[in-house]
């Protein structure tokens, strides 16, 4: 039996031997290398682009600017079609391409790109929520493209309002009113984005390490004005994605270049270009939370401004989905959530693990800690009092609590010995995090059972490290009673794999997993029919188990039955399966989540009060997983997500200069956790009650680990150092300053250190 065992990663050997091919590793004959040209500022009017000198560089085959595209320049976007394929007269973020050079070598492309002369007028950029909401601010998006949109004359792309009850009439004994900031951070997948495009007999083929091949197909086809059938997407496994490789970026541009040159074209971004291509939206959250005297939530009143970038990308969906469940996993009698997707002259923000939830969670969970302190309650106890029981709705008329969440909380507290005494300068914190999973979405799968009993599974999911291929092979292996090395996995090519909405929202194990399970069972029903026909029995006399067919008088293997049925010509059985969550008109998100991804994180830290350095002694992660189909992979997801959360909690922060260019561009200046930054002890605990909608009772995993880290560590730092910091990241300087300010406040004369000035970095 394969399910529930940590079988070895499918594709693992290729990954440890260097044989795994990522997009930049593919060799294509006669390929042209592409370089893009950008400005060092975020907002400018382009007056002229002189490409003459660049075009004369030996080896250059094509230089394209906006003038070389159909007019008006085609736009693209997964949800809102607002982004020109190439900058069309205006640059709206530093990182928006103005020209593209295709040449025989990378050297020639680079040399030519450096020779392109852009005449431009720099314009004032909108770089913060404050900038953007100023009535005098320049408008990032041309209002003439927002017909019938009441917000057209503002920088608000969309505003959402969710809630129930009546916050203004609610009576609370204690109200916590605070402002929180979550920084702009970047995905920093170790594989920088890479793309290939080539004309083919049907139209065009695009190679991209995309998470969503069928979204890319749709968006590229729309940008070309073609039917989707003419666009083939080949999606090599991403070398890390985390949402950053979800939504199309430069693929439409590459498609045009390939068609113009009639040759394959290849673009491999530098890490610096990747920083300018994808990021997480920052957020300012104003939270007012009312409690009764026992610490029960009376109301939550949240106003969140998310600074999305210059174009919509998937930014509005991030804002709506995160804010819809923004009150966390707590029973809230009265709720009001106002959330805005605010445009700015910055890199378009996109999906990033957690999809807006870590931003909201930082505020809502920190509020509970402040309330606990104000009411003299334990931080675990205040959470316990507010969690719904299993089956209880916490968002009215939506998917109720689908797990034993109080038990999850209790396990996380116990895992770090919550109530044991602590030495000086140490503290503990705990936080829950909850994320709405996929709402309306669809996955289709094909499974082929070959005459020798081996199988091929065909699926449109992308394996970006989460191990989808392994889990899908386990499902087919379980159903057919064969080891995973008898199963071939085919993924990542829209000319072969059936439709899948996306590899996102921790949905693949549940949605694609169920589609594959159904395809396997479709084959098993065919086996039953075949067995009944071959042996002149009624269907009811045949039982198809995992790998064996039981007849009234004997058992035979699948292979024996297939042999008896097909005879010498041989053949195969083809199973199809689909799993869909229907679109629900009128639902704020287009449908209820299939499950809730719930995580509780607890942390213990030590703060060096002289330097502000935080050392994480331990983190425990407890996830309500339903059933872990491959425990090692689930734990690996939780741990990796938690360490990524340590990044935005303690060190990560994209900084912009006054022109809107990223100051800490690249690995030297932008710190992500190294092996030396991880907790001394990191433990992942899986709660398995088999209560999920996925195969064998599974729920999704992958994002949970990142949701609750900031508030758990923030609360631990508060206990260790006695300071509350509401702006992430909790850098040593911020902590040191907070400690110093507190000392001054408590005893102004006792402080002898000079108040040195230095800038936050």
């Amino acid at each position, binding site marked *: 039996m394969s399910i529930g065992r940590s079988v070895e990663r499918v594709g693992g050997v290729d*990954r440890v031997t260097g044989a795994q091919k990522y997009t930049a590793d593919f060799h294509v004959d006669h390929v042209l290398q592409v370089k893009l040209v950008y400005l060092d500022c975020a907002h400018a009017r382009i007056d002229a682009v002189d490409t003459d000198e660049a075009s004369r560089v030996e080896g250059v085959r094509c230089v394209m600017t906006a003038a070389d595209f159909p007019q008006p320049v085609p736009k693209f976007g997964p949800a809102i079609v607002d982004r020109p394929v190439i900058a069309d007269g205006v640059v709206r973020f530093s990182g928006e391409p103005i020209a593209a050079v295709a040449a025989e070598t990378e050297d020639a492309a680079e040399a030519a790109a450096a020779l392109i002369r852009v005449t431009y007028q720099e314009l004032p950029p909108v770089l913060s929520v404050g900038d953007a909401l100023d009535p005098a601010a320049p408008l990032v998006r041309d209002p003439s493209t927002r017909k019938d949109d009441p917000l057209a004359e503002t920088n608000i792309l969309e505003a959402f309002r969710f809630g129930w009850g009546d916050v203004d009439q609610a009576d609370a004994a204690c109200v916590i009113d605070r402002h929180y900031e979550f920084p702009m951070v970047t995905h920093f997948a170790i594989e920088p984005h890479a793309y290939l495009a080539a004309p083919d007999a049907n139209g065009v083929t695009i190679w991209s390490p995309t998470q969503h091949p069928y979204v890319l197909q749709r968006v590229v086809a729309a940008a070309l004005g073609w039917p989707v059938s003419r666009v083939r997407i080949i999606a090599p496994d991403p070398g890390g994605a985390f949402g950053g490789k979800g939504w199309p970026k430069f693929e439409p541009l590459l498609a045009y270049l390939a068609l113009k040159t009639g040759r394959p074209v290849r673009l491999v971004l530098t890490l610096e270009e990747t920083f300018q291509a994808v990021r997480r939206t920052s957020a300012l959250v104003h939270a007012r939370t009312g409690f009764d005297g026992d610490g029960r939530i009376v109301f939550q009143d949240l106003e969140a401004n998310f600074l999305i970038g210059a174009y919509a990308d998937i930014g509005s969906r991030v804002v709506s989905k995160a804010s819809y469940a923004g009150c966390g996993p707590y029973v809230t009698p009265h709720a009001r959530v106002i959330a805005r997707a605010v445009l700015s002259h910055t890199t378009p923000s996109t999906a990033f693990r957690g999809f807006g939830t870590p931003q909201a969670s930082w505020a809502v969970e920190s509020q509970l800690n402040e309330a606990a302190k104000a009411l003299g309650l334990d931080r675990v106890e205040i959470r316990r009092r507010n969690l719904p029981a299993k089956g209880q709705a916490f968002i009215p008329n939506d998917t109720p609590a689908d797990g034993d969440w109080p038990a999850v909380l209790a396990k996380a507290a116990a895992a770090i010995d919550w109530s044991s005494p602590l030495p000086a300068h140490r503290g503990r914190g705990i936080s829950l995090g909850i994320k709405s999973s996929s709402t309306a979405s669809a996955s289709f799968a094909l499974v082929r059972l070959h005459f020798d009993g081996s199988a091929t599974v065909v699926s449109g999911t992308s394996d970006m490290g989460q191990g989808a291929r392994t889990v899908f092979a386990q499902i087919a292996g379980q159903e057919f009673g064969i080891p995973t090395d008898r199963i071939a996995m085919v993924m990542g090519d829209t000319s072969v794999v059936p439709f899948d909405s996306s590899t996102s929202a921790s949905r693949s194990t549940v949605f694609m997993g169920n589609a594959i399970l159904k395809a396997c069972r479709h084959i098993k029903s065919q086996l039953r029919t075949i067995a009944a026909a071959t042996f002149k029995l009624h269907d009811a006399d045949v039982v198809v188990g995992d790998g064996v067919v039981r007849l009234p008088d004997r058992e035979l293997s699948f292979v024996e039955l297939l042999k008896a049925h097909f005879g010498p010509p041989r053949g195969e059985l083809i199973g199809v399966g689909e799993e869909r969550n229907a679109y629900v008109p009128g639902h704020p998100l287009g449908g209820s989540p299939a499950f809730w991804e719930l995580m509780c994180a607890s942390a213990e830290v030590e703060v060096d009060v002289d330097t502000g350095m935080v050392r994480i002694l331990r983190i425990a992660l407890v996830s309500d997983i339903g059933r872990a189909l491959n425990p090692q992979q689930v734990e690996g997801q939780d741990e990796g997500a938690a360490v990524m959360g340590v990044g935005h909690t303690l060190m990560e922060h994209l900084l912009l200069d006054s022109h809107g260019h990223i100051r800490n561009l690249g690995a030297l200046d932008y710190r992500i956790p190294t092996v030396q930054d991880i907790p001394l002890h990191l433990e992942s605990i899986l709660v398995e009650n088999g209560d999920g909608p996925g195969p064998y009772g599974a729920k999704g995993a992958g994002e949970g680990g990142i949701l609750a880290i900031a508030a758990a560590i923030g609360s631990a730092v508060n206990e260790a150092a006695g300071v509350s910091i509401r702006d992430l990241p909790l850098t040593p300087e911020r902590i040191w300053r907070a400690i110093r300010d507190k000392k001054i406040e408590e005893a102004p004369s006792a402080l002898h250190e000079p108040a040195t000035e230095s800038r936050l970095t």
Partner: protein
Amino acid sequence: MSATVPVKLIVNGRAHSIDASPHHTLLEVLRDQIGLTGTKECCAEGECGACTVILDGEAIDSCLVLGVEADGKTVLTIEGLATGDRLDPIQQAFLDHGAVQCGFCIPGMIMSAKYLLMTNPRPTEDEIKEGLAGNLCRCAGYSRIIAAVTAAAETPGTK
């Protein structure tokens, strides 16, 4: 473009004679001229470790060494670790311990681990962390990588 320079080097036991552009890095030579794409490019400034190879017995970032500087030298890359179908114990340990997710950092990570165990066959946990501090991973959370290197160090035949 600039004139090329003849370069002879031994990669994974095999001699190569190539004409390298003087400004191309060893990483570019390995990937684009010799066709060994197992070594990865990420930051191209010596900070992420994805391009780590062993050059004349020293672990280096191949993005910081020019191809011409490798003339006459011996290079070991990720493709040179396994013997036929038999994985190096470090490679096997990475699989056994679930240390691999997307895999993009793994060639560099394993080469740093290889160098560590070549020079310090029984490292402490702190020494492992120091040895891998120059290799960034964004997927795995590192703890399983540490466990893998610890286990490989205890495997007979690892050197």
